[in-house]
């Protein structure tokens, strides 16, 4: 799958034209299918800059697929994507990506510092080797995630939470303007989760846009200020306060309708919904 294949390659408009420049992420009519099975259907999405947004939805809702389609890892059938009004391939370096931890082989022979420096490969370009400056930047990023003591460690010796921190450091070192994280809180302990949330909030507070595929409805209101509820289509999107309603969650998580209605108040209803999704 060629890296430069973006959905809008056949679009007519002139290349310099900015499309919705005021939005950090703008997705229009995006449809993705795997083996003729639609995974995402007609997605329209707008996320303003400077928010910390969660993408939630049941298993198979296409949360990861949406992120991958935005980043050109999955070729969409239709639709187009703009980041700060530009195509992805034009502003690649302003985008940081934290894939799912399980997407790589952690027994690969390399060190923590090496992995973090991979975040700078895009900036270095062909043939140039990372040097002292890159190492210093990588160390600084490791410090941000409190992993500086592990720089020389072989990655196979890390715990799950430490792996996640290393992946986040690899994205931080890019100094991007918008970050996409795929399930960063999955399978990490409570301490690490708190640390990760603090880092992400810090990014948001410095004006970056943070978009997180999230699985835990219980923490949505505490961690995030923007919410996208997804189930192959966009069920609802907007500020968390407006979107996080029993009705919307019922629409996305379907099967839990009874549970949702059985809940005493809003909080109880939410808790009921949280028990079953992935």
């Amino acid at each position, binding site marked *: *799958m*060629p*890296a*430069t294949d973006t959905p809008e390659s056949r679009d007519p408009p002139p290349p310099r034209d900015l499309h919705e420049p005021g939005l950090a992420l703008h997705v229009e009519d995006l449809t993705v299918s795997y083996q003729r099975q639609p995974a995402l259907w007609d997605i329209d999405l707008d996320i303003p800059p400077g928010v910390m947004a969660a993408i939630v939805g049941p298993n198979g809702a296409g949360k990861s697929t949406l992120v*991958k389609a935005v*980043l*050109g*890892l999955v070729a969409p059938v239709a639709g187009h994507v703009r980041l700060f009004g530009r195509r992805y*391939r034009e502003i*690649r370096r302003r*985008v940081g*990506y934290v*894939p799912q931890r399980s*997407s*790589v*082989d952690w027994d*690969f*022979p*390399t*060190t923590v510092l*090496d*992995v973090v420096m*991979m975040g700078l*490969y*895009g900036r*270095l370009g*062909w*043939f140039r*080797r*990372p040097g002292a400056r890159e190492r210093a930047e990588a160390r600084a990023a490791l410090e941000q995630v409190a992993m500086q003591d592990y720089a020389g460690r*072989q990655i196979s010796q890390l715990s799950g939470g430490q792996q996640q921190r290393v992946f986040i450091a*690899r994205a931080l070192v890019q100094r991007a303007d918008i970050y996409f994280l795929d399930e960063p809180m999955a399978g990490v302990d409570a301490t690490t989760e708190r640390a990760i949330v603090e880092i992400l909030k810090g990014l948001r507070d410095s004006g970056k846009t943070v978009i997180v595929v999230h699985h835990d409805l219980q923490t949505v209101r505490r961690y995030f200020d923007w919410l996208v509820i997804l189930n192959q289509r966009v069920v609802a999107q907007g500020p968390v306060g407006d979107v996080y309603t029993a009705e919307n969650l019922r629409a996305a998580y379907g099967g839990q309708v009874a549970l949702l209605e059985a809940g005493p108040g809003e909080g109880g209803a939410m808790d009921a919904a949280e028990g079953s999704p992935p």
Partner: protein
Amino acid sequence: MTVLAWLSDYTLQTVMMGAVLLGVVSGVLGSFAVLRRQSLMGDVLSHAALPGICLGFLVAGGRELGGMLAGAFAAAGLAALCVLLIARQTRLKTDAALGIVLSVFFAVGVVLLSYVQSRAGAGQAGLTSFLFGQAAAILRSDLWLMGAVTALALAVVLAFWKEFKLTSFDPGYAVVAGYPVLALEIALTVMIALAIVLGLQMVGVVLMTAMVIAPAAAARQWVRRLEAMVLLAALFGVVAGLTGAVISAQARGLATGPLIVLVATGIVAVSLLLAPGRGVLWSWAARLQEARRLRTRQVLLTLHRLAEGHGDPAYPSEQGMVDAYHGAATRRALSRLAARGLVRDVGHHPETAPHWELTDAGHAEARRLEAGANDIPGAESAAPEVTGGKP
């Protein structure tokens, strides 16, 4: 003197140089193949080369190395393409695609081989030597070709080092960073095919994949970084190649290729067993040490609690009783504790059973363990219930 004369043997020199080149190129490229879980791809490429060799022979009208290797390379490339297409376009998984392509290409190769051999005159050119390799058939002029391909492969790996590293570790991230991952993966596969084709003459289509996998798999056991893995794999490849060549030169009729492969797998076996941290023996030793450490701690705590139960810090515990509490002999654990100055033997008379008491340091250590060491499995159950009775 004789060794020198023997080493200056022209044929052996040629074979050894070829083995060194092959060891380097297959070690370096094999590292990437193994890390990218493409070990089986090497097997397919080498088996699929056979029909190419036969066609090259037929087209060139004789045993001309250039033509046959070109045919081998083309056939291997076609096979790799088939695997890719089958895995992508059908519902078959990659392993099934690999198996199918390997068998079909090899079958075609064997059919062609028998056809070539049955042809009057043309035949006995020794095409069967490509099945298991024939190192002695290598000419000095072939070395130039091998050297050129090896140099090219090394130059490419060096030039695109960080790209190959990133693509091998995290291809998705490489795509997002803007690298043409598919092109890089194809480049690696093409180079692995080249290395395999180079080795066919020496090691043969059946065993060549071992040259790609074995040095890299062995090297992986010893290293922490890709740089070290690639260098060590090249070294292992060279050692296997040289050793195999020299052994086969010692006796008539010992096939060089299989010997090289045997040496390489010997290195793998040693590495799997012994490599620090990853080796099998290493983890056994670590487990044994851990078990011993726990036992020692438990015995110390037992003595401490017995003494506390009797209100006498210098309470002498009989060794047989400590054995009974632990359901096992504790003499070694007690000796280890004594060596650390935590207990001392107070059974002075030869006719009485050995008795042990804790030193002050022993009590201090036991209290330290009790304070923060409730994690010792079995420590609770091993602690004796002392009711005040005499031992």
